[in-house]
């Protein structure tokens, strides 16, 4: 081996090591600052991570667009959904008086809230768009209490990283990071356009997340768990959607 080729080999070896090391450091930093989505392991993991990390950096505190009252859609579309469960129908027949939202996990005071109790927290409204990943959308006035008030009431512990929220149908569950959980427009919505939230739009209680597409706004929420380890839930991909081929982060 000549000196020249040995030098070349050395230089490229050092460059490759530096490259791998800096990638490793970047990955560690991204992990530390919460820029890597739970479903980063798929063949689309690169795209999911780039989108999530970029949007998290750009949009951490940005507010979803709010619209004028005259822009509210005349009829808020009730999308197709799986048949209502017997448990749901039973609660519906009682006018949802027995509907409970249980909050547990990494909280100081696990609690179970009735709709009346949720309504005793500060009531806010937002006129925002619900956009489905299929391509259609509607604008409605969503009424509810920002999730952060409820999280304050139960006292989330400092190591909390994700909020898992589950529909009355336990196969229908999602999770969000703390940036979304504490965002002022993330609502526990119980009203729409001045009235109760219709069942077709997720009533009596829907987690409303206006900066992500519709499937993240889970209908009929009954259970919430605060966690530091999303891998413990389902297949560890963050929510039911990635298990069906959809992205966990849906800000795009």
């Amino acid at each position, binding site marked *: 081996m000549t000196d020249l080729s040995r030098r070349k080999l050395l230089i490229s070896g050092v460059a490759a090591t530096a490259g791998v090391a800096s990638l490793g450091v970047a990955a560690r930093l991204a992990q530390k600052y919460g820029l890597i989505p739970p479903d980063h392991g*798929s063949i*689309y993991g*690169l*795209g*999911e991570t*780039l*989108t999530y990390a970029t*949007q998290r950096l*750009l*949009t951490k505190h*940005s*507010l*979803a*667009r709010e*619209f004028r009252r005259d*822009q509210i*859609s*005349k*009829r808020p*579309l009730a*999308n*197709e959904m799986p048949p209502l469960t017997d448990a749901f129908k039973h609660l519906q027949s009682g006018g949802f008086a027995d509907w409970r939202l249980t909050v547990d996990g990494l909280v100081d005071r696990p609690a179970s809230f009735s709709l009346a109790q949720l309504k005793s927290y500060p009531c806010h409204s937002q006129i925002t*768009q619900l*956009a*489905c*990943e*299929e*391509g*259609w*959308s*509607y*604008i409605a006035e969503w009424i509810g209490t920002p999730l952060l008030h409820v999280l304050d009431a139960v006292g989330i512990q400092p190591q909390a990283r994700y909020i898992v929220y589950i529909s009355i149908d336990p196969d229908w569950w999602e999770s969000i990071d703390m940036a979304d959980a504490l965002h002022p427009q993330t609502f526990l919505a119980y009203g729409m356009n001045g009235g109760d939230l219709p069942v077709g739009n997720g009533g009596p209680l829907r987690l409303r997340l*206006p*900066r*992500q*597409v519709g499937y993240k706004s889970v209908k009929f929420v009954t259970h919430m768990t605060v966690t530091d380890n999303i891998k413990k839930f389902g297949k560890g991909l963050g929510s039911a*959607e990635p298990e*069906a*081929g*959809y*992205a966990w982060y849906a*800000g*795009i």
Partner: protein
Amino acid sequence: MARLESVQVPLPDCVPTSAAAIAATTASPRHSALVRVTHWIITLCFFALLVSGFEIVISHPRFYWGETGNVLTTPLFQLPIPASRSLVETGYNYVLPDQNGWSRSLHFQTAWIVVLTGLLYLVSGAFTGHFRKDLLPNKSDLSWRSLSTTIASHLRFARPGAAEAWSYNPLQRLSYLFVIFVLFPLVIWSGLAMSLAFVSAFPATVTLLGGEQSARTIHFFVSLALLLFVLVHIVMICVAGFKRRMRAMITGAVATRKEERS
């Protein structure tokens, strides 16, 4: 036969005619390595975006104008194709399988690759003078007379002269500039305008286009324009000589007179 005829066209001085000059060809390729690599990356990405974009569209093949639109509102138009969701009334009595999950993920991941590759191409093109030297048409070529001659020869599907093996004709230059500086930025812009999180930080992205559904409709038409460009591009390559044009874009080499004879 056509190949033999083309040899009759006088070759410009710069085309090497001896074996010794082939080395010069290799030293100075028709397209720079960066142009060739980015060209093929974008080509692969285009087809990935086309397939995944089509899959996304069939989940709701209706288009609207303004901020919102759904099956309860009047569409601008509806594509006469079946849908992958039963929500949309299509006139077909079947529903296609739902492919939206992987399609969206592939679409966005590919969009990232296109944007990053495109940036590399733009920055290097600006530094090397690629846009100025290779793509900006000469003032004299922009006269109506000159352009109409080029358009007429295109409409006759005339095989281009050998000089075009080394440089683009004015019509080609204008088309490429339009694709690079109008269609690509517009398709990226209208795509970002559909991202709820992105527009929460940069609302003008969507309001300037007239609303989220307008952005979706614009995205669709710009994609169609890009598809049309690709189809015409492929036809033109076939007219000009598929093998030689492909070689120029893959290896950078341009066929010499000797090689053309064989």
